[in-house]
């Protein structure tokens, strides 16, 4: 994901801001890392350049 994408992203559940943590980045984009929602205490991974923002706190 490009760095500027983070400007429009939010937590899928509470819609709050996310903290971006970059693990690996090239000239074009962030390849791996995480987006952290402190309000929900949930870490959403970034893998292969795609942020995984599927809701994680739904229960059966």
């Amino acid at each position, binding site marked *: *994901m*490009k760095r500027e*994408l983070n400007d*429009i*992203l*939010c*937590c*899928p*559940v509470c*819609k709050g801001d996310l903290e971006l943590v970059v693990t690996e980045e090239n000239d074009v984009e962030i390849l791996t890392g995480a987006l952290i929602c402190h309000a929900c205490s949930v870490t959403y991974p970034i893998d*292969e*350049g*795609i*942020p*995984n*923002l*599927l*809701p994680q706190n*739904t*229960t*059966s």
Partner: protein
Amino acid sequence: MAILPDYMPIKVFEQYAERYDQWFVDHPDVYLGELKRVKIAIGTVPTPVLEIGVGSGRFAGPLSIKHGVEPSLPLGLMAKKRGIEIIQGIGESIPVKSRTFRTVVMITVLCFLEGPDETFREVHRVLMHDGTLVVAFIEKGGTIAQTYLTRPDKGTFLSHARFYTQEEVVSMIKRNGFVLKSADCRMGFCILVFHKDE
């Protein structure tokens, strides 16, 4: 409530991503016909544009849509290769800030949604004032639904679909804060254009 990534249609797209994408190669007449009609309906919609359920990017790519939400990672990776910025997520809980996009496009995704009303409420939230919503869908009882349900290629996916009539879709979207602007319904494939009603 079930964990949404385990929702059956999402699992099917995860499992048969390659087969899904190959369908567009094997059926250029149907694919290009639908693409042409969507292109005409969309015209010059205001940007930025977000596609919900972008799949492998077979529509977003040619339509120059820059952003897509897609629950399936294998399909999302294909769309990424077609130049689309992918957010892995679901329409029922769009992980995008409010009033970000001027246009939202949904092409043959309505029938696979677990929560269509929740999705349209979310689309309303992420659209800017007077934003545009374009919904293209296979109509219940129409030619396409009847033809492909029994065929092994497209039937793999459509057998998990829940189809709606034009009237049902219009009613559903209107009650979630939109006004119908235009409708093109032919041969079982409908394209509806709405404006956000504040």
